[in-house]
């Protein structure tokens, strides 16, 4: 086996992942926090005002990254679900356990900031726009996933059930998105379409890109930390965890 392949195999093993991922977690945290600070200050203080929406558009720098991330995390869970069921990789099942609450928080944040943004822009907290509605459905898919996990007492069983549900959900997400869009064109014209909005100047979208990457990295740090906790918890009876803890801490 080449060194790269060995590395990948080690990544799939909780014990090796625990040590290998630590620098990643630190890296993600540093990059994420610094990009978010830069992106938010840039977006909130220095980006130009929108000529129609004024300052209220600045919530985009929180709204868009969280909405993006919620969807990406859901798809990642679907991929992890396949990995967990087909190759029986323990880590993939832990990944779903850790990512579901993060995704739920992101979807909740996207919905909340969307509502706050909607009030001054559309004149209503909630308008059943295609994107907000499919985000709401995504939010409830995540609620179901978290509830299912919590209802099953056995960790192994909960993980596998969540993997099946994550796959089913991921298959359904495009259908839901499409049907909601279709429903909208039937009932009301797409007056609030983002796609027909005037293109943003670089001074507006550059901080947005920084924020998106920042939030992705920050979520990466959360996920790595969560995975390491989950590994310690699930392998608490394993020799190596006991030795680590006896030696006065889980650090390598």
């Amino acid at each position, binding site marked *: 086996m080449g060194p790269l392949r060995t590395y990948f195999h080690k990544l799939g093993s909780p014990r090796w992942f625990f040590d290998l991922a630590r620098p990643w977690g630190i890296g993600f945290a540093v990059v994420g926090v610094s990009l978010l600070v830069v992106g938010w200050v840039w977006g909130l203080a220095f980006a130009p005002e929108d000529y129609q929406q004024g300052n209220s558009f600045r919530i985009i720098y929180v709204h868009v990254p969280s909405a993006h991330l919620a969807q990406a995390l859901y798809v990642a869970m679907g991929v992890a679900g396949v990995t967990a*069921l087909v190759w029986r990789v323990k880590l993939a099942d832990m990944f779903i356990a850790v990512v579901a609450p993060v995704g739920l928080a992101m979807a909740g944040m996207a919905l909340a900031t969307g509502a706050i943004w909607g009030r001054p822009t559309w004149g209503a907290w909630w308008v059943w726009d295609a994107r907000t509605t499919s985000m709401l*459905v995504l939010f*409830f*898919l995540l*609620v*179901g*996933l978290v*509830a*299912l996990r919590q*209802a*099953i007492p*056995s960790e*192994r*069983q909960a993980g*596998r*059930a969540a993997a*099946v*549900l994550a*796959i*089913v*959900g991921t*298959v*359904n997400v495009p*259908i*839901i998105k*499409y*049907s*909601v869009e*279709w*429903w909208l064109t*039937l009932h009301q014209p797409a007056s609030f379409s983002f796609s027909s909005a005037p293109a943003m100047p670089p001074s507006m979208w550059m901080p947005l890109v920084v924020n998106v990457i920042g939030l992705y990295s920050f979520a990466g740090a959360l996920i790595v930390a969560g995975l390491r906790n989950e590994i310690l918890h699930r392998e608490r009876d394993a020799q190596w965890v006991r030795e680590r803890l006896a030696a006065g801490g889980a650090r390598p």
Partner: protein
Amino acid sequence: MSIAIAQTRRDLAIVVRSRGEALNPLAFFALATLLFGLAGPSPETRAAIAPGAVWALAALATALSMEGLFRRDVEEGALEQLLLHARPLWPAVLGKLFAHWCVTGLPLVVLGPVAALALQASTDVLPALALGLLLGTPTLTFIGAIAAALTAGIGRGSLLVALIALPLCVPTLIFGAGAAFAAAAGADATPQLLWLAALLAAAATAAPFAVGAGLRVSQEH
């Protein structure tokens, strides 16, 4: 095929011998229609929401009926017997779901238009509503069965089944209610009905495998 038919006959026999339980979802549907009727302030409002309300209630009634789908089989060990057989699980799942649909879905196809009439919808809506329910309720059954399979090991949790299944029912609900509303507006409901048929085809192809996987997971120890 013979496995599916045997499973259907067995499940239908059980339903016939223990009547009461199978009627609960239908009673729930009728009762909830009453609540919608009382909550609607005027005949116009009731007529306007009728097709949508019928579809939402059909989804709810189906999701709530699912909790009992595997409960008896889990308690009596019939499910473990089924899982121990080496043959693929999906024919038996398909048979089971067909039996369940005959008991809850098919009555809803009849009760749905009746409920819409009770909510004072115009008679123009009824064909699209009935046809939509005929195409849509099997899809709702398939989706609900996935949730029921995943929770089969827990023993309780009709609410959990609903929580898992209902977000997945959104497309069916949209096209089903869309067909009825199109008919109410005097438009052609064919596209929506075709979409419902497409969703049914997709669900019938994929769901039995997901249900099988869910059942296997639920009985692992």
